[in-house]
């Protein structure tokens, strides 16, 4: 078979292999294509302000998708992130009226820790399917929030100035939210790639039995993971309320399914053990640009959702095709 080494590999195959080796490349190409389509449809729309705006809206989605990435690495999923984000945002907006900002922040983070802890114990100790566990806790959380809303209905709500600054402000072309997101993203990428905890997440997702037999305390890893995920969701809530500026009981709920989609598009396997956060960030950007694109096309809401679903499906299928070539 020595001749096969000499025969030049066909160009198409070479491209495919190149893309399979660098899964980020096709994603970036897709993102660029979307932006180019946008520019063709509305010449001049792609400018500094538009880019800042897109990044602003992509950041909360990207952080929530980070929660999904980390949980999906272990073969799980966290559907309670929407409720957690909404809860911390709502509590922050209502407690800031009467409390010191630091105390309001702590109060806002409390439900996040609690829900994360319950999720972690349910999944890690009792071995409940993460999908069910997190859906259940999000149901409980929503109920608690509704009860809580009654108690603060008289005191009203306001958006703290620094959150509005962080969420919507733009300093010399760069959205302020990047101040929060860049360190956070760096931390996630670093944790996943370079620390023991990150390795454990991959290991648990890849082969749980082997991991446990090699002495890893499964429940500790899972509990730590879901608490981290919830904390990230809580922080996202605070950022998102600064961006949206209208506290409501379903504030971050529309972000949940797109966050799963972003992680999947970004190349994280829903069965665990494979993926990373950089892909997820690009996935979140793709989804945000896609939403803009569909809005600009002035489609009815229904057609927009159909297209959104089809594109998520198509991108995932195409991506699997490319990666599986390896």
């Amino acid at each position, binding site marked *: 078979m020595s001749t096969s080494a000499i025969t030049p590999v066909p160009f198409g195959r070479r491209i495919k292999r190149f893309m399979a080796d660098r899964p980020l490349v096709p994603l970036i190409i897709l993102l660029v294509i979307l932006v180019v389509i946008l520019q063709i449809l509305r010449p001049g729309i792609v400018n500094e302000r538009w880019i800042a705006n897109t990044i602003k809206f992509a950041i909360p989605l990207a952080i929530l998708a980070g929660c999904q990435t980390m949980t999906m690495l272990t073969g799980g999923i966290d559907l309670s992130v929407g409720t957690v984000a909404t809860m911390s945002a709502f509590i922050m907006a209502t407690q800031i009226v009467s409390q010191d900002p630091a105390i309001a922040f702590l109060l806002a983070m409390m439900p996040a820790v609690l829900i994360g802890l319950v999720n972690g114990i349910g999944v890690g100790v009792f071995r409940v399917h993460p999908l*069910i566990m997190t859906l259940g806790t999000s149901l409980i959380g929503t109920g608690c929030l509704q009860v809580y809303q009654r108690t603060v209905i008289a005191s009203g709500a306001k958006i703290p100035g620094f959150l509005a600054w962080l969420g919507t402000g733009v300093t010399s072309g760069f959205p302020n939210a990047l101040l929060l997101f860049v360190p956070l993203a760096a931390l996630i990428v670093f944790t996943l790639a370079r620390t023991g905890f990150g390795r454990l997440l991959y290991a648990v997702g890849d082969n749980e039995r082997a991991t446990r037999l090699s002495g890893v305390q499964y429940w500790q890893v899972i509990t730590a993971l879901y608490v981290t995920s919830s904390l990230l969701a809580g922080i996202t809530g605070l950022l998102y309320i600064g961006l949206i500026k209208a506290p409501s009981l379903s504030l971050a709920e529309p972000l949940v399914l797109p966050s799963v989609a972003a992680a999947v598009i970004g190349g994280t396997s829903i069965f665990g053990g494979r993926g990373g956060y950089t892909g997820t960030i690009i996935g979140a950007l793709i989804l945000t640009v896609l939403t803009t694109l569909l809005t600009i096309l002035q489609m009815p809401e229904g057609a927009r959702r159909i297209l959104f679903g089809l594109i998520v499906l198509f991108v995932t299928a195409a991506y699997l095709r490319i990666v599986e070539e390896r």
Partner: protein
Amino acid sequence: MSHFLRRQGWVIGLLALLIVLFIATRIIQPGYGSGDFGSLARAVLPYAFAVAAQTVVVIAGGIDLSVAAMMALTSVTAASMMAGASEEYALLVVPFVLAMGLVLGALNGLLIVVTRVPDIVVTLAMLFVLQGAALLVLDAPGGAAAEWLKALISGTVPIPGLPDAIDAWLPKALLVLVVCLCVIWVPLRRSRLGLSIYAIGSSELAAFRSGVPVKRTRIIAYALSGLFAAFGGLALTMSTGIGAPIPGPYLLASVAAVVLGGVALGGGKGGLLGPIVAVFVLRLVRTDLTLLAIDPNVTAIIEGAIMVAVVMFGAFITMRGRQ
């Protein structure tokens, strides 16, 4: 007998729980009678079909996140087709909508098999697509339902020779549910196809090696799920008289009832009876909480807590059983 008890232990436990809940309901509200039972059966109807849809897929080792959206789409389709049409026209609408559910469900399965994308992602994408389609059919709650369809699930079944007191406890909705489920489920369970569905849920590789057409069976399982979801959508239109394009809380409820009903989420285990009884249990708990005059928001918390606790308990039992 002990074999039977061991196999059906979970369902028997659920039935006992249901009876305890009925007794509790009578204690809370001594006036709880046949009429209330009828409205319970009507309220359960769409949930039960959603659960049946989820059960088939879960037994086959998958999950269907598009159940609620499928119900919304079939419901609005039925309602908008029947709006302003004659009563006889509805006779055509019902099979059309059911066929639509079957085809869309099969499409779910086909996409999973052909694209090899995980089922969670495919059905999630379909959730968006179906929701969007529902919004295109009707952008606000509306439409109508034929009178005979509405009459089909209201009132009771008169059985000659039985006193009215017993008759009153047989709401038509319950009969519709039992007939629709049995006509599909019982022959299926006994057929080769039913066995194949259990087989691919239990171990896809083993099923493949013993000659089960895995891909075809998976597509059929999803098609059946779509069919049950279409029944659920029709039930929604029948009980409300309109169609609403926004999906109800049926996804979470269906998954919770499937787990509570003793169907393993890994696939290959359980039956349809358990999840259906579980739906009644969950709805009756809600009724009890309402009768106790508990704030509806607190009811949501309690309901969620019960579901989570039950699921945890179930997982714990399975874990102990394995050791």
